[in-house]
């Protein structure tokens, strides 16, 4: 997976991670400002605009508390992102919606009336994501936006790989419909 914001070895960010792990809040604030856009976008797309602020704060507080466990075996941005995904998934589970949303719903696909192909994608991409059903939405974000593989998503969400594939196709077809304005 390609992650934006990868931290080159020996960069100032590496120093900030070390300083923050030692309790330096100023260093941690610099890390926050470097990564907040990506983390907030993840939470906004997977949850909602209303929840994104609160969950983003939770993620950074959790990051602060767990910094001592970061051993530098991966880029800090990768570690942070994985933590963020876990927190988001936990949040979704906390509302007891995960299982229901992951169940296959063939009827939902049957209801789709996909319009003719359009040369342009008119509707705002972020708004189109907001309109996706929750199960399809999180898999679309994890796979197509964040770059996770189906097998990784299946493990994270505790679903079958086939379910992940079907939900992704469902999401893409709905995005096609939303974005072409039909």
């Amino acid at each position, binding site marked *: 997976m390609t992650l934006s914001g990868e931290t080159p070895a020996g960069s100032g960010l590496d120093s900030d991670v070390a300083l*923050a792990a*030692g*309790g330096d*809040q100023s260093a*941690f*604030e610099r890390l*926050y400002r470097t990564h*907040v*856009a*990506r983390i*907030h*976008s993840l939470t906004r797309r997977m949850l909602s605009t209303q929840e994104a*602020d609160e969950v*983003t*704060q*939770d993620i*950074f*507080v*959790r990051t*602060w*508390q*767990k*910094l*001592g*466990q*970061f051993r530098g*075996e991966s880029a800090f941005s990768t*570690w942070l992102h*994985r933590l*963020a995904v*876990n*927190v988001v*998934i*936990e*949040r979704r*589970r*906390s509302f007891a919606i995960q299982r229901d949303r992951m169940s296959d719903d063939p009827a939902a*696909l049957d209801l789709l009336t*996909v319009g*003719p*192909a359009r040369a342009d994608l008119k509707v705002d*991409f*972020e708004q189109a994501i907001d309109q996706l059903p929750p199960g399809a939405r999180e898999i679309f974000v994890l796979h*197509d*936006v964040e770059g996770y593989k*189906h*097998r990784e998503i*299946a*493990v*994270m969400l*505790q679903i*079958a790989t086939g379910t992940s*594939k079907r939900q*992704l*196709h469902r999401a*893409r077809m709905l*995005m*096609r419909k939303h*974005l*072409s304005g039909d």
Partner: protein
Amino acid sequence: MHQEWTDQLSDYLDGELSADERDAVEAHLRTCAPCAAVLDDLKRVVARAATAAARPPDADLWAGIAARIETGGAASPGRVMPFGRREARRFTFTLPQLAAAAALLIAVSGGLAWNAAERIGAADSSVSVAQPPQTADADAASPAAATGAAEFARVENVGMADAQYDAAVADLEKALKDGRGRLDASTIAIVEHNLQIIDQAINQARDALAGDPANSYLSSHLVEARRRKLDLLRRATALATETN
């Protein structure tokens, strides 16, 4: 447009089809303009998603984070702020039941894990003492964590050694089966449902690891799923014993 073909287009785009399936899709696309147009649209959706820009929040969230950090003290590895509800809260045990189960859990898991660790050590001295997962796991506040880091390491060892783990699971499953009559139907249903989910996660992680053995994230997930199964079985067994 033909749904039997368009249903395969995402797998086609992602390279998930077999060679024969791919050839069949491509042959159809050469003769079906509507399906080819759907494919073009899906390509645009995928390309758009891959280039979606990150956007910062409208408001600066740092002040709230800083306040919570200050009230929560210095960075403390392993300590997790209360957040949401954990998966384990699917259970509907009463407080007295949980208290009794927790006491038994500590005794049973400590004994089992210690015993398993001893056997692991005797059987395979190359098994290293497991460390807490490097992956940013949001589950550090699991009930097993309450038994301390040493216990965690022992349970991890149980999780990494198939024979010992399977033996511990088999023992607990037998104990649970024996005590099944002392649990009410709804509790049994919850336990069985959760065991089914965990088993599914274990199987998926194993399958994924078969294709990518060096993936540390998958490894830690497998360990975590197995630990959860052990933990759930211990809790259920303890509950069955407590209600005796």
